[in-house]
């Protein structure tokens, strides 16, 4: 009977996920999935034959209060950090569940099947925990976002991974508790080692991959405690995470291996910094005049927009331009921002209708007919090197060909190369205007200047 109820809860999660796939039904989808999880929690409370009610209720209570407070207070620009932090907690929980089973039961008495599951749940959970913490620290600016590399890094990581594997075999074969704790500690270490060499710009891929991991960890925990709802939920999350990971690496035209192991972005463009190439600098009035006479305008937002919290200022400028008869759309690159779809959320927060958000395939063909492209805190996604320079690290990545528009306006704090450390030839083109300023301040000044044109 209870199993049928678990099945109903798992079905609710699947239906909820399905509905999450369309903007109009997404909100109810999320609620259906949440109801599924809640139902499963109630079932587990009834079903488990709990001995320590006080601990269970205290745990659920404390966790719920922290969860609600954090979720309601977090700013939309900080979503990538929040998702990595939550993900880390999920991984931690899976590892702790396995550790509790190890502490309560004698490992030697555990069957091989259970041993494998305990090991998997611990390993994947511990990796997802520390990996997510590092991703969080990089995104939050607690740690430098650039790749941290040291000599012999890959060999060292490989040795740690091998040691983990050896210990895991020992745990399963022999039931050694000492080996179990050593394995868990090394897995925590490997999570840190695996993420520090990855640059901040690649964090979207890391978060999504770690999300897949924490799903797998949950599924493994489901095997440990023989709960099918847990296995199904974990499998759903695992496959969702892997799909998003693959889609993102495809959008950058790089392999997953390249993202994870290449230390991408560590080679900074120091060689270039010697020569000063001329750029066309502009101020708010120049930009306002250009925009005032443009009919078709595309905005290309990037991470700088999120940092400057400029989503409302963008919307205000777009409204003013539309009131003057121009068509304004937004071109969103698949890897813009620090997590997939981050720009869409920010612009939705500012009440930009989602029909105006065009993806790469929709927006790029419009470039030649576009009068003005306004690039807001974005860099690599409009870098023509990706198209023209086979020697560039981002060569082959699909970009917006902003240099094909009649005029490209770049708002950026300075000429410094972006996260990937790659110089951008777009900045030096004849029909490019460079406006050096904080994105939000710049947009407000352009709006003010526009009223005088």
């Amino acid at each position, binding site marked *: 009977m209870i199993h049928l109820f678990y099945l109903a809860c798992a079905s609710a999660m*699947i239906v909820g996920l399905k509905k*999450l*796939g369309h*903007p109009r039904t*997404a909100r109810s*989808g*999320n*609620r259906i*999935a949440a109801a599924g*999880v809640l139902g499963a*929690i109630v079932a*587990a*409370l009834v079903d*488990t034959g*709990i001995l*320590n009610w006080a601990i*269970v209720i*205290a*745990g*659920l209570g404390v*966790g719920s209060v922290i*969860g609600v407070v*954090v979720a309601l207070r977090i700013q*939309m620009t900080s*979503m990538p950090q*929040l*998702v990595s932090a*939550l*993900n880390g*907690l*999920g991984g*931690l*929980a899976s590892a*702790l*569940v396995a550790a*509790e089973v190890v*502490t309560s039961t004698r490992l030697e008495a555990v069957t091989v*099947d259970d041993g494998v599951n305990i090991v998997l749940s611990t390993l994947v959970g511990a990796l997802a925990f520390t990996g997510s913490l590092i991703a969080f620290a990089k995104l939050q600016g607690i740690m430098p976002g650039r790749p941290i590399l040291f000599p012999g890094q890959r060999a060292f990581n490989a040795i740690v991974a091998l040691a983990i594997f050896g210990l895991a075999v020992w745990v399963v074969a022999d039931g050694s508790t000492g080996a179990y704790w050593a394995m868990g500690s090394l897995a925590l270490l490997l999570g840190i080692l695996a993420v520090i060499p990855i640059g901040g710009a690649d964090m979207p891929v890391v978060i999504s991959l770690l*999300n897949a991991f924490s*799903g797998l960890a949950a599924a493994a925990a*489901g*095997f440990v*405690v*023989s709960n*099918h709802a847990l*296995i*199904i939920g*974990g*499998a*759903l*999350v695992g*496959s969702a*995470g892997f799909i*998003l990971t693959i889609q993102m690496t495809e959008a950058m035209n790089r392999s997953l291996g390249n993202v994870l192991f290449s230390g991408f972005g560590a080679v900074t463009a120091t060689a270039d910094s010697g020569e000063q190439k001329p750029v066309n600098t502009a101020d708010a009035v120049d930009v306002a005049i250009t925009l005032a006479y443009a009919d078709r305008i595309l905005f290309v937002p990037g991470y700088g927009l999120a940092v400057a919290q400029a989503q409302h200022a963008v919307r205000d400028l777009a409204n003013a331009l539309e009131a003057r008869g121009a068509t304004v759309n937004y071109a969103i690159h698949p890897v813009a921002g620090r997590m*997939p*779809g981050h720009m*869409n959320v920010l612009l939705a*927060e500012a*009440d930009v*209708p989602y029909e105006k958000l065009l993806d790469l395939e929709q927006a790029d063909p419009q470039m030649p007919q576009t009068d003005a492209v306004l690039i807001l805190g974005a860099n690599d996604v409009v870098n023509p090197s990706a198209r023209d320079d086979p020697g560039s690290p981002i060569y082959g990545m699909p970009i917006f060909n902003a240099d094909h528009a009649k005029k490209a306006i770049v708002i950026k704090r300075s000429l410094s190369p972006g996260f990937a450390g790659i110089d951008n030839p777009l900045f030096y083109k004849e029909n490019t205007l460079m406006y050096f300023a904080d994105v939000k301040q710049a947009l407000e000044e352009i709006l003010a200047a526009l009223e005088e044109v």
Partner: protein
Amino acid sequence: MSDLLVGITVFVLASFVGFEVISKVPRTLHTPLMSGTNAISGITVLGAIAAAGLGATTAAQVLGFLALVAATINVVGGFVVTDRMLEMFRRPRDGEK
């Protein structure tokens, strides 16, 4: 069939369902999708309930309690923040005025 085999069958089939359901989601919704699926991965709270509720020794109870707090933050925080995001994805004509 052994328990493990049944479990593996369930896992593989659920993975296929996941692939089918997720692969068609538009990019606009990828952030809520990630935070929503992330919340579902907090379903490990079921394991944590068993761990916290059945732990016999103090050490086991402490581990179980910590697991339960972490997993609950994951579930509750994930769903609430996803709901907050999706609330903004309404069409303006449904909303203001």
